[in-house]
Protein backbone atom coordinates (compact mmCIF):
# COMPACT_ATOMS: atom_id res chain seq x y z
CA UNK A 1 0.00 0.00 0.00
CA UNK A 2 2.78 2.40 1.01
CA UNK A 3 4.75 1.34 -2.04
CA UNK A 4 1.91 2.30 -4.36
CA UNK A 5 1.50 5.63 -2.59
CA UNK A 6 5.21 6.37 -2.91
CA UNK A 7 5.09 5.45 -6.56
CA UNK A 8 2.20 7.81 -7.12
CA UNK A 9 3.97 10.51 -5.15
CA UNK A 10 7.15 10.25 -7.20
CA UNK A 11 5.09 10.27 -10.40
CA UNK A 12 3.29 13.44 -9.40
CA UNK A 13 6.56 15.01 -8.35
CA UNK A 14 8.32 14.26 -11.61
CA UNK A 15 5.31 15.47 -13.59
CA UNK A 16 5.22 18.66 -11.55
CA UNK A 17 8.94 19.10 -12.20
CA UNK A 18 8.41 18.69 -15.92
CA UNK A 19 5.53 21.12 -15.79
CA UNK A 20 7.56 23.76 -14.02
CA UNK A 21 10.38 23.34 -16.58
CA UNK A 22 7.88 23.84 -19.39
CA UNK A 23 6.41 26.90 -17.63
CA UNK A 24 9.93 28.26 -17.24
CA UNK A 25 10.52 27.69 -20.96
CA UNK A 26 7.32 29.58 -21.80
CA UNK A 27 8.47 32.45 -19.58
CA UNK A 28 11.81 32.50 -21.38
CA UNK A 29 10.14 32.48 -24.79
CA UNK A 30 7.79 35.24 -23.73
CA UNK A 31 10.72 37.35 -22.55
CA UNK A 32 12.81 36.57 -25.65
CA UNK A 33 11.59 39.31 -28.03
CA UNK A 34 12.44 42.05 -25.54
CA UNK A 35 15.78 40.43 -24.73
CA UNK A 36 16.63 40.24 -28.43
CA UNK A 37 17.02 44.01 -28.37
CA UNK A 38 20.13 43.59 -26.23
CA UNK A 39 22.17 41.86 -28.90
CA UNK A 40 25.43 42.59 -27.12
CA UNK A 41 24.36 40.44 -24.16
CA UNK A 42 23.39 37.54 -26.43
CA UNK A 43 26.59 37.89 -28.40
CA UNK A 44 28.58 37.70 -25.17
CA UNK A 45 26.76 34.51 -24.23
CA UNK A 46 27.33 33.00 -27.67
CA UNK A 47 30.99 33.69 -27.05
CA UNK A 48 30.84 32.04 -23.62
CA UNK A 49 28.85 29.01 -24.71
CA UNK A 50 30.18 28.61 -28.24
CA UNK A 51 33.54 30.11 -28.92
CA UNK A 52 34.99 28.93 -25.62
CA UNK A 53 33.74 25.37 -26.27
CA UNK A 54 35.30 25.37 -29.71
CA UNK A 55 38.62 23.77 -28.76
CA UNK A 56 37.11 20.80 -26.93
CA UNK A 57 34.50 20.32 -29.68
CA UNK A 58 37.09 20.38 -32.45
CA UNK A 59 39.46 18.04 -30.65
CA UNK A 60 36.70 15.57 -29.82
CA UNK A 61 35.36 15.80 -33.36
CA UNK A 62 38.75 15.02 -34.80
CA UNK A 63 39.27 11.99 -32.59
CA UNK A 64 35.72 10.68 -32.99
CA UNK A 65 36.12 10.98 -36.75
CA UNK A 66 39.47 9.23 -36.68
CA UNK A 67 38.10 6.37 -34.61
CA UNK A 68 35.15 6.13 -36.97
CA UNK A 69 37.53 5.99 -39.91
CA UNK A 70 39.54 3.22 -38.30
CA UNK A 71 36.60 1.16 -37.07
CA UNK A 72 34.62 1.68 -40.23
CA UNK A 73 37.58 0.65 -42.32
CA UNK A 74 38.10 -2.54 -40.31
CA UNK A 75 34.43 -3.44 -40.61
CA UNK A 76 33.96 -2.53 -44.27
CA UNK A 77 37.15 -4.28 -45.27
CA UNK A 78 35.52 -7.60 -44.37
CA UNK A 79 32.95 -7.00 -47.08
CA UNK A 80 35.47 -5.58 -49.48
CA UNK A 81 33.72 -2.22 -49.65
CA UNK A 82 36.18 0.19 -48.08
CA UNK A 83 35.00 2.85 -50.54
CA UNK A 84 31.80 3.16 -48.56
CA UNK A 85 33.83 4.50 -45.63
CA UNK A 86 33.07 8.10 -46.58
CA UNK A 87 29.35 7.41 -46.63
CA UNK A 88 29.40 5.48 -43.38
CA UNK A 89 31.47 8.05 -41.53
CA UNK A 90 29.50 11.02 -42.83
CA UNK A 91 26.08 9.58 -42.12
CA UNK A 92 27.19 8.42 -38.70
CA UNK A 93 28.65 11.81 -37.86
CA UNK A 94 26.03 14.10 -39.35
CA UNK A 95 22.97 12.22 -38.12
CA UNK A 96 24.07 10.74 -34.86
CA UNK A 97 27.48 11.35 -33.36
CA UNK A 98 27.74 15.03 -34.27
CA UNK A 99 24.60 16.23 -32.51
CA UNK A 100 24.72 13.75 -29.60
CA UNK A 101 28.39 13.97 -28.66
CA UNK A 102 28.37 17.73 -29.13
CA UNK A 103 25.31 18.03 -26.91
CA UNK A 104 26.89 15.87 -24.22
CA UNK A 105 30.10 17.90 -24.34
CA UNK A 106 28.06 21.10 -24.46
CA UNK A 107 26.16 20.06 -21.33
CA UNK A 108 29.45 19.31 -19.62
CA UNK A 109 31.31 22.41 -20.75
CA UNK A 110 28.74 25.17 -21.17
CA UNK A 111 25.73 23.79 -19.29
CA UNK A 112 27.61 23.41 -16.02
CA UNK A 113 29.11 26.87 -16.39
CA UNK A 114 25.63 28.34 -16.91
CA UNK A 115 24.10 26.47 -14.01
CA UNK A 116 26.84 27.29 -11.53
CA UNK A 117 26.95 30.93 -12.63
CA UNK A 118 23.22 31.39 -12.19
CA UNK A 119 23.28 29.34 -8.99
CA UNK A 120 26.00 31.56 -7.53
CA UNK A 121 24.07 34.66 -8.58
CA UNK A 122 21.11 33.24 -6.70
CA UNK A 123 23.23 32.29 -3.69
CA UNK A 124 24.87 35.72 -3.48
CA UNK A 125 21.50 37.46 -3.89
CA UNK A 126 22.49 39.11 -7.17
CA UNK A 127 19.21 38.04 -8.75
CA UNK A 128 17.23 39.48 -5.83
CA UNK A 129 19.24 42.69 -6.09
CA UNK A 130 18.26 42.99 -9.73
CA UNK A 131 14.62 42.52 -8.83
CA UNK A 132 15.00 45.29 -6.25
CA UNK A 133 16.29 47.59 -8.99
CA UNK A 134 13.27 46.72 -11.12
CA UNK A 135 15.46 44.84 -13.58
CA UNK A 136 13.87 41.60 -14.63
CA UNK A 137 16.59 38.98 -14.02
CA UNK A 138 14.90 36.62 -16.44
CA UNK A 139 15.18 39.12 -19.25
CA UNK A 140 18.57 40.55 -18.29
CA UNK A 141 20.43 37.41 -17.21
CA UNK A 142 18.61 34.18 -18.01
CA UNK A 143 17.26 34.74 -21.52
CA UNK A 144 20.57 35.89 -23.08
CA UNK A 145 22.27 32.82 -21.66
CA UNK A 146 19.50 30.56 -22.91
CA UNK A 147 19.49 32.09 -26.40
CA UNK A 148 23.26 32.06 -26.56
CA UNK A 149 23.24 28.33 -25.89
CA UNK A 150 20.42 27.70 -28.36
CA UNK A 151 22.29 29.55 -31.11
CA UNK A 152 25.71 28.12 -30.33
CA UNK A 153 24.75 24.45 -30.16
CA UNK A 154 23.79 23.78 -33.85
CA UNK A 155 26.88 25.64 -35.00
CA UNK A 156 29.07 23.59 -32.68
CA UNK A 157 27.46 20.37 -33.93
CA UNK A 158 28.10 21.36 -37.55
CA UNK A 159 31.74 22.16 -36.78
CA UNK A 160 32.05 18.85 -34.95
CA UNK A 161 30.68 16.94 -37.95
CA UNK A 162 32.94 18.68 -40.45
CA UNK A 163 36.05 18.13 -38.34
CA UNK A 164 34.96 14.53 -37.79
CA UNK A 165 34.57 13.92 -41.53
CA UNK A 166 38.01 15.39 -42.00
CA UNK A 167 39.35 13.08 -39.28
CA UNK A 168 37.76 10.04 -40.92
CA UNK A 169 39.20 11.15 -44.24
CA UNK A 170 42.62 11.55 -42.61
CA UNK A 171 42.65 7.99 -41.28
CA UNK A 172 40.78 6.33 -44.11
CA UNK A 173 42.48 7.99 -47.06
CA UNK A 174 45.90 9.04 -45.79
CA UNK A 175 46.70 6.11 -43.51
CA UNK A 176 44.53 3.18 -44.61
CA UNK A 177 44.75 3.96 -48.29
CA UNK A 178 41.09 4.23 -49.31
CA UNK A 179 40.83 5.99 -52.64
CA UNK A 180 40.10 9.67 -52.04
CA UNK A 181 37.92 9.97 -55.13
CA UNK A 182 35.59 7.14 -54.23
CA UNK A 183 35.56 8.27 -50.58
CA UNK A 184 34.07 11.61 -51.57
CA UNK A 185 32.01 10.61 -54.59
CA UNK A 186 30.26 7.73 -52.83
CA UNK A 187 29.58 10.06 -49.93
CA UNK A 188 28.08 12.66 -52.23
CA UNK A 189 25.92 10.08 -53.97
CA UNK A 190 24.59 8.57 -50.76
CA UNK A 191 24.20 11.49 -48.36
CA UNK A 192 21.06 13.52 -48.96
CA UNK A 193 19.88 16.88 -47.76
CA UNK A 194 17.49 14.96 -45.52
CA UNK A 195 20.37 13.51 -43.51
CA UNK A 196 21.83 16.96 -42.98
CA UNK A 197 18.41 18.27 -41.97
CA UNK A 198 18.03 15.51 -39.42
CA UNK A 199 21.35 16.49 -37.89
CA UNK A 200 20.40 20.17 -37.77
CA UNK A 201 16.98 19.48 -36.26
CA UNK A 202 18.57 17.25 -33.66
CA UNK A 203 21.23 19.74 -32.69
CA UNK A 204 18.68 22.58 -32.44
CA UNK A 205 16.45 20.51 -30.16
CA UNK A 206 19.43 19.41 -28.08
CA UNK A 207 20.54 23.04 -27.84
CA UNK A 208 17.17 24.08 -26.44
CA UNK A 209 17.12 21.10 -24.06
CA UNK A 210 20.63 21.60 -22.69
CA UNK A 211 20.34 25.35 -22.29
CA UNK A 212 16.89 25.10 -20.74
CA UNK A 213 17.95 22.48 -18.20
CA UNK A 214 21.09 24.45 -17.32
CA UNK A 215 19.36 27.78 -16.74
CA UNK A 216 16.44 26.13 -14.95
CA UNK A 217 18.68 24.23 -12.55
CA UNK A 218 20.83 27.31 -11.98
CA UNK A 219 17.93 29.71 -11.54
CA UNK A 220 16.11 27.51 -9.04
CA UNK A 221 19.24 26.26 -7.27
CA UNK A 222 19.15 26.13 -3.49
CA UNK A 223 21.13 29.24 -2.53
CA UNK A 224 23.90 27.41 -0.69
CA UNK A 225 27.30 26.14 -1.78
CA UNK A 226 25.95 22.62 -1.64
CA UNK A 227 22.85 23.59 -3.62
CA UNK A 228 24.93 25.12 -6.42
CA UNK A 229 27.04 21.98 -6.58
CA UNK A 230 23.95 19.82 -6.74
CA UNK A 231 22.42 22.02 -9.46
CA UNK A 232 25.56 21.63 -11.56
CA UNK A 233 25.56 17.87 -11.20
CA UNK A 234 21.87 17.61 -11.95
CA UNK A 235 22.36 19.72 -15.08
CA UNK A 236 24.80 17.21 -16.53
CA UNK A 237 22.85 14.13 -15.53
CA UNK A 238 19.44 15.39 -16.64
CA UNK A 239 20.82 16.80 -19.88
CA UNK A 240 22.55 13.54 -20.77
CA UNK A 241 19.44 11.45 -20.11
CA UNK A 242 17.18 13.81 -22.02
CA UNK A 243 19.58 14.09 -24.96
CA UNK A 244 19.76 10.34 -25.44
CA UNK A 245 16.02 9.90 -24.94
CA UNK A 246 15.14 12.69 -27.38
CA UNK A 247 17.72 11.35 -29.81
CA UNK A 248 15.80 8.10 -30.00
CA UNK A 249 12.49 9.91 -30.49
CA UNK A 250 13.79 12.19 -33.23
CA UNK A 251 15.53 9.35 -35.05
CA UNK A 252 12.30 7.36 -34.98
CA UNK A 253 10.34 10.37 -36.22
CA UNK A 254 12.72 10.85 -39.15
CA UNK A 255 12.62 7.24 -40.36
Amino acid at each position, binding site marked *: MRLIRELGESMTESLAGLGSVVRFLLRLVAASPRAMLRLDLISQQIYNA*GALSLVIIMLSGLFVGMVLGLQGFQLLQRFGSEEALGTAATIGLVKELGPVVTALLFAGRAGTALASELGLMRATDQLSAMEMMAVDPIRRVVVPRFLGGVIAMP*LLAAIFSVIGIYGAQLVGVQIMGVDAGSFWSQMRAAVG*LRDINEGIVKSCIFGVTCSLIAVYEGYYATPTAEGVGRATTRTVVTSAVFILFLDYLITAAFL
Partner: protein
Amino acid sequence: MRNSRTLDLGTGSFVLLGFAALFFLTTQTTSRGISLASPPHYDLTAKFDNIGDLKVGAPVSMSGVEMGRVTKIEFDWKEYKAAVTMRIDARYKQIPTDSDASVYTQGLLGGKFIGLTAGGAETYLKDKDQIAFTQSAFVLENLIGQFAANFMKGGGGQSDSGKSKTDAPTAAEPKSTEKSK
Protein backbone atom coordinates in the same frame (compact mmCIF):
# COMPACT_ATOMS: atom_id res chain seq x y z
CA MET B 1 36.43 48.67 -24.92
CA ARG B 2 39.21 46.50 -26.18
CA ASN B 3 37.83 43.63 -24.20
CA SER B 4 34.42 43.93 -25.80
CA ARG B 5 36.01 44.21 -29.20
CA THR B 6 37.96 40.96 -28.87
CA LEU B 7 34.78 39.39 -27.53
CA ASP B 8 32.78 40.53 -30.54
CA LEU B 9 35.55 39.30 -32.79
CA GLY B 10 35.46 35.90 -31.09
CA THR B 11 31.68 35.66 -31.34
CA GLY B 12 31.68 36.78 -34.93
CA SER B 13 34.35 34.37 -36.05
CA PHE B 14 32.68 31.53 -34.15
CA VAL B 15 29.35 32.18 -35.84
CA LEU B 16 31.04 32.48 -39.22
CA LEU B 17 32.90 29.23 -38.65
CA GLY B 18 29.66 27.53 -37.67
CA PHE B 19 27.85 28.68 -40.77
CA ALA B 20 30.84 27.75 -42.91
CA ALA B 21 30.60 24.25 -41.44
CA LEU B 22 26.88 24.08 -42.20
CA PHE B 23 27.53 25.27 -45.72
CA PHE B 24 30.25 22.65 -46.15
CA LEU B 25 27.88 19.92 -44.95
CA THR B 26 25.07 20.89 -47.29
CA THR B 27 27.18 21.45 -50.38
CA GLN B 28 30.20 19.20 -50.11
CA THR B 29 28.83 16.02 -48.57
CA THR B 30 25.58 15.88 -50.55
CA SER B 31 25.10 15.60 -54.26
CA ARG B 32 23.07 18.75 -54.61
CA GLY B 33 25.14 21.87 -54.50
CA ILE B 34 23.28 24.95 -53.40
CA SER B 35 22.45 26.88 -56.52
CA LEU B 36 21.01 30.25 -55.64
CA ALA B 37 20.15 31.02 -59.25
CA SER B 38 19.66 27.67 -60.93
CA PRO B 39 21.80 27.57 -64.09
CA PRO B 40 20.00 27.56 -67.47
CA HIS B 41 18.61 24.15 -68.21
CA TYR B 42 15.85 22.31 -70.04
CA ASP B 43 13.75 19.29 -69.18
CA LEU B 44 13.46 16.01 -71.03
CA THR B 45 11.24 13.07 -70.26
CA ALA B 46 11.57 9.38 -70.98
CA LYS B 47 9.35 6.40 -70.23
CA PHE B 48 10.90 3.17 -69.05
CA ASP B 49 9.37 -0.25 -68.48
CA ASN B 50 11.51 -0.67 -65.42
CA ILE B 51 13.88 1.81 -63.81
CA GLY B 52 15.21 -0.47 -61.09
CA ASP B 53 16.17 1.60 -58.08
CA LEU B 54 16.82 4.81 -59.98
CA LYS B 55 16.36 7.74 -57.63
CA VAL B 56 15.66 11.43 -57.95
CA GLY B 57 19.00 13.20 -58.15
CA ALA B 58 20.69 10.42 -60.12
CA PRO B 59 23.04 11.71 -62.82
CA VAL B 60 22.19 11.76 -66.51
CA SER B 61 25.25 11.34 -68.67
CA MET B 62 26.33 10.86 -72.25
CA SER B 63 29.61 9.08 -72.95
CA GLY B 64 30.31 9.39 -69.25
CA VAL B 65 29.99 13.17 -69.18
CA GLU B 66 27.41 14.32 -66.68
CA MET B 67 24.84 16.50 -68.44
CA GLY B 68 22.06 16.72 -65.90
CA ARG B 69 20.09 15.04 -63.15
CA VAL B 70 16.87 13.15 -62.69
CA THR B 71 14.39 15.58 -61.15
CA LYS B 72 11.14 13.65 -61.04
CA ILE B 73 10.01 10.04 -61.20
CA GLU B 74 6.32 9.33 -61.68
CA PHE B 75 4.17 6.45 -62.76
CA ASP B 76 2.34 6.82 -66.06
CA TRP B 77 -1.05 5.14 -65.63
CA LYS B 78 -1.81 5.23 -69.34
CA GLU B 79 1.16 3.25 -70.51
CA TYR B 80 1.97 1.60 -67.19
CA LYS B 81 5.51 2.82 -67.35
CA ALA B 82 7.84 4.87 -65.21
CA ALA B 83 7.96 8.47 -66.44
CA VAL B 84 11.31 10.02 -65.64
CA THR B 85 11.89 13.76 -65.92
CA MET B 86 15.47 14.91 -66.19
CA ARG B 87 16.97 18.36 -66.11
CA ILE B 88 19.72 18.85 -68.66
CA ASP B 89 22.21 21.65 -68.46
CA ALA B 90 21.60 24.19 -71.24
CA ARG B 91 25.23 23.85 -72.33
CA TYR B 92 24.34 20.45 -73.76
CA LYS B 93 21.47 21.32 -76.06
CA GLN B 94 22.54 19.39 -79.13
CA ILE B 95 21.16 16.00 -78.21
CA PRO B 96 19.73 14.42 -81.39
CA THR B 97 16.00 13.60 -81.35
CA ASP B 98 16.60 9.91 -82.01
CA SER B 99 18.97 9.48 -79.08
CA ASP B 100 18.18 6.69 -76.68
CA ALA B 101 18.16 6.60 -72.90
CA SER B 102 19.08 3.57 -70.83
CA VAL B 103 19.24 2.93 -67.12
CA TYR B 104 22.70 1.75 -66.16
CA THR B 105 24.33 0.75 -62.91
CA GLN B 106 27.41 2.47 -61.57
CA GLY B 107 29.92 -0.23 -60.86
CA LEU B 108 28.72 -3.68 -59.91
CA LEU B 109 26.40 -2.74 -57.07
CA GLY B 110 26.41 1.04 -57.28
CA GLY B 111 23.47 3.36 -57.81
CA LYS B 112 21.55 3.63 -61.07
CA PHE B 113 22.03 6.43 -63.56
CA ILE B 114 20.67 7.32 -66.99
CA GLY B 115 23.01 7.03 -69.93
CA LEU B 116 22.13 8.78 -73.19
CA THR B 117 23.45 7.53 -76.49
CA ALA B 118 23.47 10.03 -79.32
CA GLY B 119 21.46 9.23 -82.41
CA GLY B 120 22.14 10.45 -85.91
CA ALA B 121 19.31 12.94 -86.45
CA GLU B 122 20.00 16.50 -87.49
CA THR B 123 17.28 17.89 -85.23
CA TYR B 124 17.85 18.32 -81.53
CA LEU B 125 15.73 17.67 -78.46
CA LYS B 126 14.06 20.73 -76.98
CA ASP B 127 12.53 21.53 -73.61
CA LYS B 128 9.73 19.11 -72.53
CA ASP B 129 10.55 16.68 -75.33
CA GLN B 130 10.32 12.97 -74.78
CA ILE B 131 13.10 10.56 -75.57
CA ALA B 132 11.36 7.85 -77.55
CA PHE B 133 13.92 5.06 -77.40
CA THR B 134 14.51 3.71 -73.94
CA GLN B 135 16.05 0.65 -72.45
CA SER B 136 15.05 -0.60 -69.02
CA ALA B 137 17.25 -1.13 -66.05
CA PHE B 138 19.20 -4.26 -65.95
CA VAL B 139 17.68 -6.11 -63.02
CA LEU B 140 20.04 -8.58 -61.48
CA GLU B 141 17.28 -10.94 -60.35
CA ASN B 142 15.83 -11.20 -63.87
CA LEU B 143 19.25 -11.86 -65.27
CA ILE B 144 19.93 -14.56 -62.73
CA GLY B 145 16.49 -16.02 -63.45
CA GLN B 146 17.21 -16.04 -67.17
CA PHE B 147 20.62 -17.49 -66.59
CA ALA B 148 19.18 -20.19 -64.37
CA ALA B 149 16.51 -21.01 -66.96
CA ASN B 150 19.14 -21.21 -69.69
CA PHE B 151 21.31 -23.28 -67.48
CA MET B 152 18.48 -25.72 -66.76
CA LYS B 153 17.67 -25.99 -70.44
CA GLY B 154 21.11 -25.77 -71.96
CA GLY B 155 22.86 -27.31 -68.98
CA GLY B 156 20.39 -30.23 -69.01
CA GLY B 157 21.15 -30.88 -72.68
CA GLN B 158 24.81 -30.60 -71.97
CA SER B 159 24.67 -33.03 -69.11
CA ASP B 160 22.82 -35.44 -71.41
CA SER B 161 25.54 -35.23 -73.97
CA GLY B 162 28.03 -35.31 -71.14
CA LYS B 163 26.47 -38.50 -69.87
CA SER B 164 26.76 -40.21 -73.23
CA LYS B 165 30.35 -39.12 -73.35
CA THR B 166 31.20 -40.07 -69.82
CA ASP B 167 29.22 -43.27 -70.03
CA ALA B 168 32.10 -45.13 -71.56
CA PRO B 169 34.69 -44.24 -68.93
CA THR B 170 32.28 -44.85 -66.05
CA ALA B 171 31.46 -48.18 -67.56
CA ALA B 172 35.10 -48.81 -67.99
CA GLU B 173 36.07 -47.68 -64.53
CA PRO B 174 34.48 -50.44 -62.50
CA LYS B 175 36.27 -52.90 -64.70
CA SER B 176 39.60 -51.27 -64.07
CA THR B 177 38.95 -51.14 -60.33
CA GLU B 178 37.97 -54.79 -60.44
CA LYS B 179 41.10 -55.55 -62.27
CA SER B 180 43.23 -53.70 -59.79
CA LYS B 181 41.55 -55.66 -57.05
